[in-house]
């Protein structure tokens, strides 16, 4: 197949994905995550190269699972190989920021009905001191236990009763309401709550009525509740593109706080990595760039499917928040991303751009031709373990990932 035809096939498979939110189950049950295993965001990472924020989150997850009573014992287990640590992406999952998933954590199940594959993601914990930003105190562990004990089962029952929620339709609508589905998920979270409301109430009937109220309050109190679900939709939509021979389209972008990694449709499961960059943006009072952890998280899958930084023009509120300035600058950001993409999304349309679709399908050749690298909207974690989120901004994918991928592509073609 020619590169052009392969790219058209890959783009078509990506934009015509039909992600449906189906269930919420413990990772052990949903994705076969067994034994003492902790998954993290980004490409594979050896323990000694992991940043302190990821390390702290892994150790906290070991405590949460009850495999160790304290961090020192947890570290010993990891160093002796008695706790396995690996990337979410290798097991069909994605995780925001540190991206931690362990077997008992409830995960959302998103099924791509166009292709039959599934993507998994944890429930968004809310803002502030949370595991995904490297916070690791007892309040973090207690929230994780509540998600396992109460929120996960209630959400799972409601979703099963719903028969599945069409995420492509929901995201297309949220985009028109000012979300770009990475830094802003207010509209998408509201739309999801509306779709779930009746099912949640019925799922809780006969059980503890306060449990349903607590879950409803939890959803209502978190503007980013939908972020994780958008990520699983991205994972379920992009995974089927991996392995389309001869395609130069990017199918994965992910970061682990040390490396930024990409995978390319025509190059299968192989990662191409380079050191992550520092995000640029705005900081909460009392924090500055000197406190920031390098770029982190699987959430760049949102940009890989044509949202987030690529849809900045749809979300003027975000443009200012992440330091992109005014509306004209937001439009320029989306137009710039169009220069490195294969096409426009037929379902994700931006009213402010006369209904043009968001740029989608990053082509490694276009990145190298232009020198324009993908723009990713992101939260910023503290580099000191235990702090949590300290700001939000934008980060760029390093050019070197794409250079390596081009070399590999040429080697296999030539």
């Amino acid at each position, binding site marked *: 197949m*020619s590169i052009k035809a392969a790219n058209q096939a890959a783009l078509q498979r990506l934009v015509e994905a039909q992600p449906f939110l189906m269930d919420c189950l413990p990772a052990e049950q949903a994705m076969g995550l067994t034994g003492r295993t902790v998954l993290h965001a980004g490409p594979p990472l050896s323990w000694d190269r992991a940043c302190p924020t990821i390390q702290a989150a892994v150790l906290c997850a070991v405590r949460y699972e009850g495999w160790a009573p304290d961090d020192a014992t947890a570290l010993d287990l990891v160093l002796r190989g008695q706790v396995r640590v690996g990337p979410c992406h290798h097991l069909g999952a994605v995780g925001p920021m540190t991206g931690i998933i362990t077997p008992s954590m409830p995960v959302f199940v998103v099924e791509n009905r166009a292709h039959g594959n599934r993507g998994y993601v944890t429930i968004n914990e809310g803002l502030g001191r949370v595991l995904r930003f490297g916070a690791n105190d007892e309040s973090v562990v207690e929230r994780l236990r509540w998600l396992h004990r109460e929120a996960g089962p209630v959400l799972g029952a409601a979703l099963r009763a719903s028969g599945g929620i069409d995420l492509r339709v929901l995201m297309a609508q949220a985009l028109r309401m000012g979300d770009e589905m990475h830094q802003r998920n207010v509209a998408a979270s509201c739309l999801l709550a509306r779709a779930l409301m009746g099912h949640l109430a019925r799922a809780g009937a006969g059980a503890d009525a306060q449990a349903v109220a607590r879950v409803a309050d939890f959803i209502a109190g978190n503007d980013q509740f939908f972020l994780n679900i958008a990520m699983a939709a991205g994972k379920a939509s992009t995974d089927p593109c991996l392995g389309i021979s001869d395609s130069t389209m990017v199918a994965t972008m992910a970061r682990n706080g040390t490396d930024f990694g990409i995978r390319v449709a025509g190059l299968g499961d192989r990662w191409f990595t380079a050191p992550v960059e520092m995000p640029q943006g705005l900081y909460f009072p009392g924090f500055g760039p000197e406190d920031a952890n390098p770029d982190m998280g699987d959430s760049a899958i949102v940009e890989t499917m044509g949202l987030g930084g690529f849809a900045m023009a749809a979300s003027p509120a975000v443009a200012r928040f992440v330091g992109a300035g005014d509306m004209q600058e937001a439009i320029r950001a989306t137009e710039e991303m169009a220069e490195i993409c294969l096409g426009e999304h037929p379902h994700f349309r931006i009213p402010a751009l006369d209904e043009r679709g968001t740029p989608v399908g990053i082509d490694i050749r276009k990145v190298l031709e232009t020198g324009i690298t993908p723009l990713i909207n992101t939260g910023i974690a503290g580099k000191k373990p235990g702090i949590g989120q300290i700001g939000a901004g934008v980060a760029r994918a390093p050019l070197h990932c794409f250079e390596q991928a081009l070399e590999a592509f040429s080697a296999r073609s030539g």
Partner: protein
Amino acid sequence: MAGIRDLFRQEVRVINLGLEAFALELERLGVPVIHVAWSPPAGGDPRKAALLAALGDEEEE
């Protein structure tokens, strides 16, 4: 040389390729200018440019 002298006796309208600083300076002087953001493919790296050329859609057709 006569051609060049004639050129500058007329109103100058400029299309600027590449370095934006030239366009901004002309703009400051009130000269009509359109800036085209352009840079050499692959940042001017001949080896990468050759790799890209070999993998171009046009080459396949």
